[in-house]
């Protein structure tokens, strides 16, 4: 049981988070909720990437007074670097999306995409 949880909780959790986000993007009609779902998908995939680089019982990839040499076991630093980039990109996209939402609201006085011409999908 514990072994199963250890092996699957991170992978399963992050994939489920992506799928929940995907479901939200497709079904929600409120524009802010669509963007929230997009944020959930982002978080899920970031978690996935970092989890793929995890090494059991290894150290964080930082040399310090405790972990002094490169011969110690480290987790993979590359996915972490990629995720740093991806988090910032995700925020940029969300910010732009919210600005668009504000303008669309100004025009239609609603956040409901089913009431907005040109946004029905």
């Amino acid at each position, binding site marked *: 049981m514990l072994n199963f949880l250890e092996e699957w909780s991170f992978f399963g959790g992050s994939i489920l988070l*992506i799928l929940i*986000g*995907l479901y939200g*993007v497709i079904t929600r009609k409120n*524009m802010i909720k*669509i*963007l929230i779902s*997009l944020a959930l*998908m*982002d978080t*899920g*995939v970031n978690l*996935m*990437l970092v989890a*793929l*680089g995890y090494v059991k019982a290894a150290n964080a990839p930082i040399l310090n007074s405790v972990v002094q040499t490169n011969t110690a076991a480290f987790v993979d630093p*590359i*996915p972490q670097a*990629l995720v740093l*980039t*991806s988090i910032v*990109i995700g925020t*940029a*996209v969300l910010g*732009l*999306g919210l600005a*668009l*939402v504000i*303008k*669309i609201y100004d*025009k239609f006085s609603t956040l409901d995409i089913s009431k*907005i*011409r*040109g*946004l029905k*999908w």
Partner: protein
Amino acid sequence: MVNLTLIIAIPLLMSFTMPIFKMLNQKLPKVIALLTTAFNLLVLTANFSQIMDSAIIIELGGWQAPLAINLYVGPLALLAAFLINGSAFILSIYNLTQDYKFDDKFYLLFLMITAGASGMVMTGDLFNLFVFIEITSIAAYSLTAFAGRDSYEASFKYLVIGGIGSVFMLLGIGFTYSAVGSLNLAEIAASAGLINPLLLQITALLFLIGVGIEAELFPLNFWVPDLYTEAPTAVSGIMSGAVSAAGIYALARIFFTLFPAQSFLNYLLYLGAITLILGELIAYQQKNIKRMLAYSSLAQMGLIVAVISLGTEGAVRAGLFQLVNHSILKILLFISAGVLISAAGSKNIDDLAGLGSKKKTAAFGFTIAAMGILGVPFLNGFISKFMIISSSLNADQFLLTVLILLAAVIEIAYYLKVVQKLYFEDLKIEVKKTAVITIPVVLLTLMIFGLGIYPQLIADPLEKAAAELINNGSYIMTVLGGM
């Protein structure tokens, strides 16, 4: 020889400085944009003969080639970069006559969409490709919203679908890195044969979703018509001429160099064929001229993807030639349509009636480009259409050939309808003052005739690009050579 990194670095520098230029002089941003794209074309030209000889690898940050980020500029990337920067150059000339509110921001976004697309075609690193796709799409979302009014919805739609695509692409990158242990395209390609077939299929699907959005492939393309309709003309032009070219390039890179397998190409062939036929059928019904051009654009993208995924050398060459032609023709169509629209004050095709006598340059440009798309002899479209049909017959794809011919017939119907309206109907409306577009129309027309009468101009680069795409061994060897 000039270092090719400058194609990305100089536009970046200019974009970051653009607000300062604006503070110095109101007119400076548009001039800087023009100069930067001209500079990029010069850099590409300076490297032309060297690249035709052998591909150039540029290591970034001074780190050895497969271990960090490197750029790979072979004939294919050079061709695509020429297309992208050439489109940007021509549209910058067009932009000289335009006045945009917040022009510093417009031009910095415009430069970055160009640099992002150039980066997409030049990079040799998977995650770097993702970053450049994001740069291109964010610039595109913002530029779409530039027209105000209805463009916000189009932009929001594109943003949401683009966001989903980037998540799937990132997931694919994660899977690939976990299996191969490297992000370098050449290293991944070298070990692609070792990856478990099922995992390979899943990863390919994830990448298809991520990149297919930029390449405007069915069913990921429902945002395109809205975007092209609502965005400013220069933006529709750059999206259709440059960004989709970069998308096709990325798609080809992934499915030819990275995961070469005939089964994936077959799926792409079906997707392309569906996109082609649906696009043409819907374009035929459109009353809005920009929407019609948008669907026609989609159809062309479908055609190019379908032909390239036939996978034979002749087919790839035909597809690439069609890509070049499509960029030239669609830019001409969009800018002349833009002028006609502002002259008539309406996007409705019926309202354009009779404008041929008043807006001579624009109507001429539109007609020439339409003829080019239809494949009239002595224009560039004729030769690429001919190559496409003969190569699809050679590959024993009769159904595809029939579809292509059918699509051509539908195209003739709706393009001639517009031309007929322009020239053979009476003027009904008051003609408004518009921008002058003589220089871009002349340049583009020269290109159309040049490539139509003397296609050997581009034969050599096309051949080398097709060879590079079909045989991924040389790509791997060039990058990993020292290892």
